[in-house]
């Protein structure tokens, strides 16, 4: 099999530094996708909340908000689905785009339109990869929790609560570890799917899983190097808004947090580029960048219409 490079956060940095426009898009597109939800909530609640004083009668705020939202579940479902499914589709798109661009035109300055175009061409293939990953995660989670809940319930039936708690905690820990491995497998799979001639998303994901299992420390370490700061930034920005209040300063912190989490997301995907045989990024300012010529052999890259060798 082809030799595998070792993923490293360093590659993520390199990708990130070369993708300022993508960073803006990864930051702003989810904001736009969330806008219908924000506007719907605003439209539903502005007429009622706008009339409230700063300190309404005790309990009224909960009653009014919960009552209005409960009556509007169907109306709210549409923007929620748009944000969740739209966010998924967009992530598939830019994941595909960045992998393709890295493989196709790594030497050239990044152009967002080109990246999106490459992503669109391979979108369905990468969507299949995502569905494979989702099914795998669901199967594994179900595979852990079906027996775990049965065992835990049996233990409760024997009035042995300690054992039931241990079973649930063990299942939770196992689920967390396994899902982290599957996440790594999925990110590796993104790059596996860029290999020349690879069209099967399932096969790419399985190869990603194989790689994750063969190089668990490097894979998980790289993943966590980005995922932990991502979660920390998100939680930190929420805590900051709680402290600052939802004014301009609070919203600025929130958006800065969103920008940083977008950066972490790009860094995370980019870190796994060495999984394929792609050459490393040339140092900034090298010839390829100036000439704008593709450093990589285009024919070595699988594209949407290509047949397997």
């Amino acid at each position, binding site marked *: 099999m082809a030799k595998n490079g070792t993923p490293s956060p360093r590659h993520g940095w390199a990708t990130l530094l070369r993708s300022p426009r993508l960073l803006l898009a990864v930051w702003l597109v989810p904001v736009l996708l969330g806008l219908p939800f924000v506007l719907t909530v605003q439209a539903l609640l502005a007429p*009622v909340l706008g009339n409230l*004083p700063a300190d309404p*009668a005790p309990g009224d705020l909960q*009653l009014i908000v919960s009552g209005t939202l409960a009556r509007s579940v169907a109306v709210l479902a549409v923007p929620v689905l748009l944000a969740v499914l739209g966010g998924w589709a967009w992530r598939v798109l830019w994941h595909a785009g960045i992998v393709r661009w890295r493989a196709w035109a790594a030497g050239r300055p990044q152009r967002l339109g080109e990246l999106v175009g490459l992503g669109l061409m391979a979108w369905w293939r990468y969507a299949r990869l995502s569905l494979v990953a989702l099914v795998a995660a669901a199967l594994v989670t179900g595979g852990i929790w079906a027996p775990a809940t049965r065992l835990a319930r049996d233990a409760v039936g024997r*009035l042995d609560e300690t054992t039931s708690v241990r079973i649930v905690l063990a299942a939770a820990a196992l689920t967390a570890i396994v899902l982290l491995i*599957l996440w790594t497998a999925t990110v590796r799979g993104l790059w596996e799917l860029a290999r020349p001639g690879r069209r099967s998303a399932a096969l790419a994901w399985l190869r990603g899983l194989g790689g994750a299992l063969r190089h668990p420390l490097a894979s998980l370490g790289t993943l966590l190097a980005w995922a932990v700061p991502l979660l920390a930034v998100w939680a930190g920005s929420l805590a900051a808004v709680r402290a600052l209040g939802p004014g301009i300063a609070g919203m600025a912190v929130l958006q800065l947090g*969103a920008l940083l989490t977008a950066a972490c997301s790009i860094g995370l995907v980019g870190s796994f580029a060495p999984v394929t045989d792609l050459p490393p990024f040339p140092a900034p300012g090298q010839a390829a960048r100036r000439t704008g010529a593709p450093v990589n052999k285009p024919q070595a890259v699988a594209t949407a219409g290509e047949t397997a060798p």
Partner: protein
Amino acid sequence: MQGRVVSVLCLVLALAAAAAAASPVPAGAPVTDTVAYTIAVELAPSTHTLLATETIRWRNTASVPAPDLMFHLYLNAFASNRTTFMKESGGTALRSSAPVEDWGWIRITRLQLPDGTDLLPSLAFIQPDDGNPDDRTVARVALPEPVPPGGAVEIELAFEARLPRVIARTGWKGDFHMVGQWFPKLGVFGDGGWNCHQFHANSEFFSDFGSYRVTVTVPEGWKVAATGVLTAEETVEEGDATERRVTFEAERVHDFAWAAAPSSLVRIVEGEFDPARDLPRPWLETASRTLGVPAAALDLPSTRLRLMIPNEQAFLADRDLRAARLALAWYGLHYGPYPYPQLTIVSPPVGAMEAGGMEYPTLITTGGSRWLAFPPLKWTPFVDAVVVHEFGHQYFYGMLASNEFEQAWLDEGLNSYAEASCMSAILRDGLIPELRPWPGDPWATNRVGLAGMPLPPTVDTFSWKFRTRHDYFAASYNRTAVALHTLEGLVGPDRFARAMREYALEWRFRHPTGDDFRASLEGSIGEDLGWFFDQAIEGDAVPDWAVLSVRQRHPRAVRGWEWKDGAWVEVAAEEKEKADGEGDGGPWTVRVDIGRKGDFRGPVEVELRWDDGTTERRRWDGLGRWVRWRFDGERRLESVIVDPDGRWALETRRADNYWRRKPDRGAVHRRLWWTAEVLRALAGLLAPWS
């Protein structure tokens, strides 16, 4: 297990005392010795069966003779899927497919008078509520001679029972046994005959006060928790087995329950409520001020606490006991001192949760979980609120003892009101450190529960006659509690607190009805409350007020013709323009329409806030559908709020109670900015798989 009947314990009767008591009791007087039960029972844990003998001495406190006796045989509710209880509960509690050992029953094997007259042949099952022939939860036995008013009768019986797998707060799970509703128990005899309802899915209980002396035999090494106090304990050799025999006695109670389990499963933790240490000082000061009673007169006695808790949940013992102490303090201050020497708490193992959250006289069951050791579950008030609620039943179920079959709200509703008041005070004063992060508000929870009802239920309905089980709970618990909170708001918290305390003290041991409760409140408050009770409790009215419209205009200029000096004169042009000027300056003609969209009529306050910074409050009697107020002057309204203090807690459609001239456009963002972040987190869950 051999079918050995435990030897009968002799009931020593003071015949002279009985003769002295042989006169009917004046109507409404507290009676705490109508009945005396002496029971000896042995538990066979492997088969979950009970073998017992029972002596009942009953006194006729009515003014008519009693020709017969009626017994509740509650355990027969779990005999099959055809009983009234099982049919009404839809079989969800005990599936029809359950193995035969999960079902339970009770059978009287001997029934006689002290002179040996056998009454068993005349024992017959009856179904006074629904005629269901498969229901054997009520039995009637004819007496050879009627018991005259003031007279007494003593009967001796033996019975065997099989406990069901834990259901409706009684039964077994593994080695844990919660033994409630377990013995043949008399109904309540009054001038209208016996009040002895079948066991229904939605109902609780009703019985006379009396004394209990119960001896329980369990295997050695087992723990027993029971109503009353432990008065005797011995170890007996029974063949090659060693058994533990414990006796509990209780006075002035109307039921007896017990729990038993091996020490490998549970432990007993002893504690105490010491008012000098455990009564929060601010509560005492506030209560003294609110109730108008000197602090010294609010003295509470100390109470022994006895907690049976699973060994695995021993870490929760302190929390259970602390909640019990706070409940003893709150209820003691507001509804009178807890008059019994001990409170027993049983926290069933997690597999036997069906036994949790129940009240018996001087014994309550709660429920915990090992998960409560971990945040965020640790920060939820599950355990504390259940302890407070079940303890509160010692008042409304235990001492006031209304007929729960027919007026469940007098117990569950009044107690839910008291529980929400107590939990609000605990949360406000931060008296349970684990609950400090808890954002919930007990009143809001009750009101949100009511807001979702498709139809408003009528509170004062027989328990089994509600349309759905949910209606029973919403009416008996939430609607009653919130209605009382509303009344508290309308008459004022101090007057209401005094009235509730007077009711709780005046009606102790007297089985008050809903009419008694209303009359007691009216007497204390000094107002006719019929209008409120008729709509909130006897009726299903729902309050809903609204600001219908607010119109603020400059006064119209005169147009057309003016009558001047006996002739019509055209209004001058400059006159037309003068008053039509734009701008914020006056004068203004203001018109406010307030409406009553609901069918609940009653007085409501309206707050008018003017642009000159002044605020005024107006009261509308709320009898008509709407009222219109006009104001002419230099100022206009900034805001209008109907019921600005939220006194009408029963009103759950509150959005239209508020009107502002300049709506606050940033309100949604300021209050709900975090919902977009929740959505982002939701979307982020898919991130690892794309």
